[in-house]
């Protein structure tokens, strides 16, 4: 549009005021309009800003060496922190427990464990981190169990009334009393030890210095009336390992499995569920000959074993159940190797991550599920002897060979996300094989979240595919008829009807699809399929009959009303097909087609399936495609068609060779926009499918789409978690996809419009 400007010359007084008002109005409108546009574009940037952190690399501060007191840094066997990562704890081989400030290493408290006269600690074992229990194996065949405790108290800050000051008082506690517990009745020193402790049961596995492998459990029962705790001891000797010296014992947190590392590269798995009759299950070669296992640990949750070797290789193993319900310890995945020989591996408290250190002083922070090396760093302090991760995974503690303790804060909130974990088959703990799976939450805290977007993306595309299968033929063909053949009077009825169709809320379509159509198709499957099959033929047959009818009958009803004539035909065909459905099912499918399909042909059949969604979502998409395609066909310049007709082409030839050829970009863009709508539709898929994230193409099964997944899970996702951000990621993907598809379609249409104006 050409600019029209007011050309009043500047005059004072009244007119000046008007001019000022005019300028004010202009600025106001410009400001308002621009802000609205900016506000809209904010959507994209906001979504992106929420998603971005999950793709950021893990950040770690520089390592901070702590000047610890001598006793605190003598022969350290254990390092740890409390929840807030403010106070660190170190335990020495001799039984000195020292607490220190994580920031500057200032000693806070030091305590020697309660040892009986003349007895020395000879071995050490840490239980599962979440239980905070450790054990010392003693020289007289007994063990001492202790627990770190951190008493947190709050006091009002005198300087700032809005804030409370938190004080943490560390100490140790003996959950089963200060008297050591008997492990070896023969009184030999416990060379190696592994313990797990919960309120009801404590289990220890120990190797004595004369080579016997013992399993002891203490069951604690508290008297309901007196509250007194009584413990019952049970102890057996385990069958010996087949070869080599025992190097490490690992009990899982559920106190069901014991892994014994022996020789250079073997692990033997004992089933110790039944404490009185443990069973040797199998011995597995962890690495090929020539390589030596140098460190191993159990990940949180007690399923997975992480094994490190002298070549720096790291691998994850866990038990996999086969068809006969037997468990086999199986190699699951290998991680990016480290430079030197692995010296220590520390698991995270609640997630499936671990920290490995090697003899060159390098460390690597890994995450098992996503197979990621999150971070590697060279400390330059010689072999790493002890490593630990804080409970919240936001700090690490290391000890180098020279006895220096180092700490660093780590920002590692989204280790679960990697290309591998989002898009490829992942072998999750306790699964029989790698698979695509989306399962974002569960009741237990040691749950391994499964964040595969593959089944959701697949479901989205499957939904769109079946919807388009229904919508494209109906909408495009219908648009051609409406634009080219239909009588104007009928258009007056059809166009508003299509607009009503577009306006029908999807929640109503979903509701009808889920509660009416799905059970109806379930009960009349053969009839429905027959109706779908018969309809196209009925159109052609009707056309032929109409053509053969005497002219005097057809004359009155002019061309352009074919669609109206076909309505009773459609109703008739549908009625007949549905009537025939049950006899057909009786004759061919034993009277119940869905049942027959799943039992005889092995096609799984769900009541709320892709067929239902295809019809319902096709319904929702038809008007979108119809309106745009109709517009494209209708606005083909009249002189083109007139020219073609004048040259003797039939109506159909003109349509096919002239009109459709010209309008095809418009029809293409209509289909694209319809596709965009089908991809993002939420309520219909939510209501008309079972929403299970399965991946198969069958028309008789359901799926779960990205949009439905967001709708279901968004409300319960905790703000800022990986789950929350992945749902935002889903939304961003939907946004970007539909926006690009629509923009492309719009550009195609605009070019087409320009073309029309030239010819």
């Amino acid at each position, binding site marked *: 549009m050409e600019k029209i400007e007011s050309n009043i010359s500047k005059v004072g007084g009244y007119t000046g005021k008007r001019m000022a008002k005019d300028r004010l109005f202009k600025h106001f409108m410009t400001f308002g309009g621009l802000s609205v546009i900016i506000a809209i574009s904010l959507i994209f940037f906001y979504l992106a800003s929420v998603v971005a952190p999950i793709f950021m690399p893990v950040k770690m501060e520089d390592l901070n060496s702590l000047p610890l007191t001598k006793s605190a840094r003598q022969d350290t066997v254990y390092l740890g922190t409390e929840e807030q990562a403010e106070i660190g704890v170190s335990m020495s081989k001799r039984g000195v427990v020292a607490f220190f400030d994580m920031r500057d290493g200032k000693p806070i408290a030091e305590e020697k464990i309660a040892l009986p006269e003349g007895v020395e600690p000879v071995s050490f074992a840490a239980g599962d981190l979440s239980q905070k229990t450790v054990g010392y194996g003693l020289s007289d065949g007994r063990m001492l169990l202790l627990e770190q405790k951190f008493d947190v108290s709050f006091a009002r800050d005198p300087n700032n009334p809005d804030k409370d000051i938190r004080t943490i008082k560390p100490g140790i506690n003996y959950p089963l009393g200060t008297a050591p517990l008997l492990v070896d009745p023969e009184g030999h020193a416990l060379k190696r030890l592994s313990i797990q402790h919960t309120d009801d049961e404590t289990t220890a596995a120990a190797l004595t210095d004369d080579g016997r492998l013992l399993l002891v459990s203490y069951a604690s029962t508290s008297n309901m009336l007196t509250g007194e705790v009584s413990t019952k001891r049970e102890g057996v000797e385990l069958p010996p390992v087949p070869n080599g010296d025992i190097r490490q014992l690992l009990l899982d947190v559920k106190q069901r499995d014991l892994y014994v590392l022996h020789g250079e590269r073997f692990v033997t798995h004992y089933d110790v569920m039944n404490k009185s009759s443990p069973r040797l299950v199998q011995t597995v070669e962890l690495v090929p000959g020539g390589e030596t296992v140098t460190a191993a640990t159990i990940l949180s949750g007690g399923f997975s074993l992480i094994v490190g070797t002298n070549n720096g290789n790291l691998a994850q193993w866990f038990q996999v159940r086969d068809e006969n319900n037997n468990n086999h310890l199986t190699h699951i995945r290998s991680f990016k190797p480290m430079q030197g020989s692995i010296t220590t591996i520390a698991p995270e408290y609640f997630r499936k991550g671990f920290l490995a250190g090697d003899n060159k002083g390098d460390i690597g922070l890994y995450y098992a599920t996503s197979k990621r090396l999150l971070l590697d760093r060279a400390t330059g302090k010689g072999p790493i002897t002890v490593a630990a991760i804080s409970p919240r995974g936001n700090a690490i503690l290391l000890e180098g060979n020279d006895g220096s303790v180092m700490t660093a804060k780590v920002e590692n909130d989204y280790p679960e996300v990697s290309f591998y974990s989002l898009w490829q088959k992942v072998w999750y703990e306790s699964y029989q094989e790698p698979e695509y799976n989306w399962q974002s939450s569960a009741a237990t805290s040691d749950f391994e979240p499964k964040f595969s977007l593959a089944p959701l993306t697949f479901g989205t595309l499957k939904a769109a595919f079946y919807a388009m299968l229904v919508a494209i033929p109906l909408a495009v063909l219908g648009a051609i008829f409406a634009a080219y053949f239909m009588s104007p009077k009928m258009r007056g009825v059809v166009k508003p009807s299509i607009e009503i169709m577009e306006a029908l809320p999807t929640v109503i379509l979903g509701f009808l699809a889920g509660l009416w159509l799905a059970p109806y198709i379930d009960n009349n499957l053969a009839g429905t399929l027959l109706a779908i099959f018969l309809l196209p033929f009925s159109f052609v047959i009707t056309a032929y009959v109409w053509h053969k009818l005497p002219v005097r009958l057809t004359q009155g009803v002019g061309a352009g009303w074919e669609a109206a004539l076909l309505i009773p035909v459609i109703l008739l065909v549908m009625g007949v097909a549905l009537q025939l459905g049950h006899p057909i099912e009786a004759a061919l499918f034993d009277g119940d087609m869905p049942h027959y399909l799943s039992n005889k042909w092995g096609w799984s059949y769900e009541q709320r399936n892709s067929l239902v969604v295809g019809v319902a979502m096709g319904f929702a998409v038809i008007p979108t495609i119809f309106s745009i395609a109709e517009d494209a066909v209708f606005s083909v310049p009249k002189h083109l068609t007139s020219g073609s007709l004048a040259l003797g082409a039939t109506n159909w030839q003109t349509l096919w060779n002239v009109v459709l050829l010209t309008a095809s970009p418009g029809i293409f863009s209509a289909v694209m926009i319809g596709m965009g709508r089908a991809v993002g539709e939420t309520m219909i898929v939510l*209501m008309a499918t079972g929403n299970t994230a399965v991946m198969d193409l069958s028309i008789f099964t359901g799926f779960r789409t990205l949009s439905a997944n967001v709708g279901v899970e968004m409300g319960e996702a905790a703000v800022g978690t990986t789950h929350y951000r992945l749902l935002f990621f889903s939304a961003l993907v939907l946004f970007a996809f539909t926006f690009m598809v629509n923009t492309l379609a719009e550009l195609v249409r605009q070019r087409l419009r320009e073309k029309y104006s030239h010819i």
Partner: protein
Amino acid sequence: MKNWIKSGEPWIWTTAGAVALSLVMVYAVVWLTAAQGLTHFWPKPVVETVFTGNDGQAVRLLGEVPDKEEVSLLRLREAGYKIDTQDKFTYRYLFKLGNRDITGTDFKWFPAPMLDKFTYPQDVLAIERREWGNFYGHLKQVKEDGKVVAEGAQAWPELLKRMERSNALFREILYIEKVEIGKLNYALEKLRLQERKLELQNRLTDAARADIQKQREPLEANFLKLQEKIERLRHDIGRDSLSAEIMDGRIIDVPLAKVADAIMPNAMSVWEKIGHYVRKFWEFTTDDPREANTEGGIFPAIFGTVMMVLLMSVMVTPLGIMAAVYMREYAKQGPMIRMIRISVNNLAGVPSIVYGVFGLGFFVYFLGGNIDHLFFPEALPAPTFGSPGILWASLTLALLTLPVVIVATEEGLSRVPRTIREGSLALGATKAETLWRTVLPIASPAMMTGLILAVARAAGEVAPLMLVGVVKLAPSLPLDGNFPFLHLERKFMHLGFHIYDVGFQSPNVEAARPLVYATALLLVIIIVVLNLFAIRLRNRLRERMRGLEGV
């Protein structure tokens, strides 16, 4: 034949078939919703029959028959029914047996071959109870304080009389509970927040505390008084009861306090049925829901929808018009504005759930969370604006419908003939005056059309609302008699979400189904009417513009 195929006739008919099929689908959906939704309120006859089970034991059935379908015998046999026939198909009837507190089953399918003839006894009473759904039985007696006051033929008129009394008492109790006690609670909560605020600001002196306590005392006294009154009314309403014989022959006492409505459907005349229909329809649109939304009315959902749409309109209209005026009248027309125009256009095609996610993250958690910290610290950790609510819902939908309004307004502006602008400018008006006095008024029907379409879209949208403020059961309306009257932070109910929730999340889907159809019908009517209105308006506008161009 060959010539005929060559002529393209069959293909033309196929395209016609596509249109016809689309039309059939649209009207089938509308008809299905209407047919199911409209019949919900019509009193249905209560059937009595005898079901003979596999073991030959006969059970009397008494209930409504809402559905019947042809079913394969294979399925029935798999379900454990022993039916001796060669047929592959038979019929089965869905019985609504009611009395689910007594017998445990409400809805059950029965195969036709195992049922006796249907009879329709005149004295069957169908009671709509306030809890536990419907009750069906033969009316026997009406009692007062356990003593029989009417029996046999006199029972029914006596029951009607006493029901009037019990319903009046019930309404009184409801009023006290909802309105009067609600008001007191609101006032008490405000006092608590006031106290907490003072405490946070370190200004909670003993004087202030005493002052608050002084305000609190009369409220608490009043509260006790009201509770006493309710106790008394509860006692009064518990006076009468009726006893009826249910299908297994037991005589059951039903206190009138639990009876919302009772009819003898088999004995009703057509006029009585019409009266009942109208009354039920009225109750449906004006009552609160009962029994986890599966019974009663949907008034809060209607109210919430209207309220949300109104708030949204207030926000979207000025913003949309401003953006359109800027883009069409003030911005430099070039590739940049063309790109913006395409983007705005395309936003209409962005999935609505994306707006919901944005609304939840940005409005609720970010804006709302900050507002709470700044203005409502006394209520923390309970969120005020930091949790989904009607304000955020309408803001989200305003964003969602913004493109609709912008596009419609732009179209309207572009249709205003050049001659009119030129005329106005030539007469010495400034651009602002031209816009304000001539162009915008002429384009106003277009804006109206945009707004109506936006409203229609917003009324039917559910996916984003699930995230930003809709709940299945809101304890109070966003508008009430307590200052400041409009409570923007409250959660609300919505017709579309009601359909989703009751149809798919409710424990008794079968019982709720007719109600969901009725709700769906209401929603369809609202949206179709709005759309037809918008279409009419747009057509009228185009006509008018065409007329103006000739000027």
